[in-house]
């Protein structure tokens, strides 16, 4: 335990000012999306996250990298999972963490997004973790505050920490991302997870396919450089990774899809459809799962194929890495 703390301190000491190279490895003030991150910056975050996986598996899970720092989880959209993950990440790094759920409070009173941001900004935060139902809302907010901002999901735009935790999960299981064939299946149109993953996986040298009915694909999907499939049999063929997306049930009322049973029949993942993928193909899902809608319930729990629970574990480590990396670039008045 002491040994690791010492390692962390050593790593930390050389980064902010002393060694320009270490700072340059992640030269960003915010993490708003995968777009704009270079390959070595992503690798740097994944390497850092790897070290936190070990820390999180020990009895004493805390260090002091963010001691004295204040982190606010500002969630305009309900999400127990992501919020808890960021909360744990902050606390394990020694930060003071406050959760704000504004989905029901201030916004109803007429306070705008920018008002909320300005109010919080006046409280001298160090990191603001934001989720919002509108694409671009986190960018808007990041322009108005002095602290680092992490996008915890904005509308259909990006969810960068999800893509990073997916990449970490894959990298630990497969040894790397380069050359892997990843099939992303389901509601690509509305998915920030899909957008962040398409960008990250391709940046890291993986091949990406998307598999979905045409009503759930964005118009310019072809511009992402991914292979587009409408049939799970061709889309999953020889895949190393099958990444299922959560389908919002409100899309099922006949607007995008006729019914759950029709969707499951053609696009739900079961053992039969998985048969064309590589024998050791991994199944991933950002959660929470709609059992029997996008994935067969038994398959989701199959410890030989599904890494869904491992993704959750990697989530905490990746978020710790993101917070750590951002705070290395943050101004410090402690002289360190």
């Amino acid at each position: 335990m002491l040994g690791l703390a010492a390692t962390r301190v050593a790593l930390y000491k050389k980064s902010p000012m002393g060694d320009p190279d270490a700072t340059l490895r992640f030269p960003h003030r915010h993490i708003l999306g995968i777009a704009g991150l270079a390959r070595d910056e992503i690798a740097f975050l994944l390497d850092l996250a790897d070290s936190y996986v070990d820390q999180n598996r020990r009895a004493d899970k805390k260090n002091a990298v963010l001691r004295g720092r204040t982190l606010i989880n500002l969630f305009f959209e309900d999400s127990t999972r992501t919020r808890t993950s960021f909360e744990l990440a902050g606390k394990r790094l020694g930060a003071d963490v406050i959760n704000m759920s504004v989905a029901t409070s201030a916004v109803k009173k007429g306070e705008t997004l920018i008002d909320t941001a300005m109010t919080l900004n006046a409280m001298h935060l160090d990191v603001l973790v934001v989720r919002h139902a509108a694409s671009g809302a986190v960018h808007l907010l990041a322009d108005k505050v002095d602290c680092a901002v992490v996008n915890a999901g904005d509308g259909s735009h990006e969810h960068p920490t999800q893509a990073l935790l997916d990449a970490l999960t894959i990298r630990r299981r497969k040894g790397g991302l380069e050359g892997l064939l990843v099939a992303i299946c389901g509601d690509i149109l509305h998915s920030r997870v899909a957008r962040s993953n398409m960008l990250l996986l391709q940046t890291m040298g993986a091949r990406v396919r998307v598999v979905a009915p045409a009503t759930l694909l964005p118009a310019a999907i072809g511009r992402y450089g991914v292979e587009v499939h409408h049939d799970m049999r061709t889309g999953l063929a020889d895949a190393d990774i099958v990444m299922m997306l959560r389908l919002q049930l409100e899309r099922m009322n006949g607007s995008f899809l006729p019914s759950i049973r029709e969707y499951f029949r053609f696009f739900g993942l079961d053992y039969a459809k998985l048969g064309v993928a590589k024998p050791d193909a991994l199944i991933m899902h950002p959660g929470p799962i709609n059992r029997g809608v996008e994935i067969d319930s038994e398959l989701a729990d199959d410890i030989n194929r599904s890494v869904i629970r491992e993704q959750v574990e990697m989530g905490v480590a990746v978020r710790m890495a993101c917070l750590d990396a951002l705070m290395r670039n943050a101004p410090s008045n402690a002289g360190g």
Partner: protein
Amino acid sequence: MASEGRRTAYVNARLLDPASGLDRAGALLVEGKRIVDLGPGLFADGVPGGVALVDCGGACLAPGLIDLRVQLREPGEEHKETIESGCAAAAAGGVTSMVCLPNTSPPIDDVSVVEFIARRAREVGTVKVFAYGAATQGCRGEQIAEMGILAEAGAVAFTDGVRAIANAQVMRRALAYAKTFGLLIVQHAEEPALATSGVMNEGEIATRLGLAGITPAAEAILLERDMRLVALTGARYHAAHVATAEGVAVIRAAKARGLPVTADTAPPYFLLNDTAVGDYRSFARLSPPLRSEDDRKAVEAGLLDRTIDCIASDHAPQDQDAKRLPFAQAEPGAVGLETLLALALSLVHNRRAGLLDVLRLLSLRPAEIMGFPAGRLAPGAPADLVLFDPARPWRIEPERFRSKSKNSPFDRHPTQGRVLRTVVDGATVYSAGADATRG
């Protein structure tokens, strides 16, 4: 007030009249509210006594701009714009007549609102303000409005403003009923079933930003339908702010068939494309949305080959609270009155069109569409004039706008062409440098 019979000579001007094709150095004489004489030889022997003199210093003197698409927000949203602030903005932009949309609160579907706007414009006493009447009651697209009575009260044409008349039967009846009185129907041509869920052009940028797109087909689909209804009813039809290549093609084909159809567009649609949205710039959220570069080029080509008859500002003031929001929640629209001339002149500076061609789009054609006597330099025509320097460079700085709202997608754009003086009914309502006072 301009006193009756008072005479003013505008000398040393470059006279530009898109109606006659005149483009020569000369002088112009105004008596009272009308132009009485003009030409290269006028005042060759000096200006007689008792005539006020305006030395134009070689600048361009042309018919004042006529803007067919303006939202003045009064009554109802006076925090965004008022008739007074809108008139000040128009005067500074060289606009001498404008037609305001009926999407006020209450909407212009009742004679009292037409009269209210006329009275407020009279009190302001600068730019001529005309009103569209609502084509349907409350602009709801369900029952046709009292077009006959509204027209008697002064409504110059009929539209549901920023909303399409979507129901085919309602549109058919609105056209047929308008035809009864010889009235013009103006359409915001976007199929709402395709358009209302989207917030920007459907394409790569919307895909990457995770914003819901509007297919460009939304415009052509409604225009195609409307062309059939125009053929069925024989009514006059005007397509507002055409923004897509397919839309331009539909108008072009309709004109070739001889249908009584006209169209306008606005500067954003021939100067910008959807890349202006960038990182969620809500000032670039317009309705219809900024389209692709191919669409932009087609709209420009439509202006040059006269498929599109005129350029309107599409002035849509929005306050900070309506724009400083996540992109999809922000209100659409951009102010345009004060940048209309300079942005239209970019067609000249980019060597796409001549000066007279652009003036035809800004004054002559809109006047003809509305049946206004203005839009020309001719003896007997109203003395509605704009004096401008087409080459003078400036930077668009919305904080200097007279409009109450500052939402311009051209914020900080360098541009060329400055209004020096605006004259309405013989009275100066704006002059550069000094703030405008009438007379």
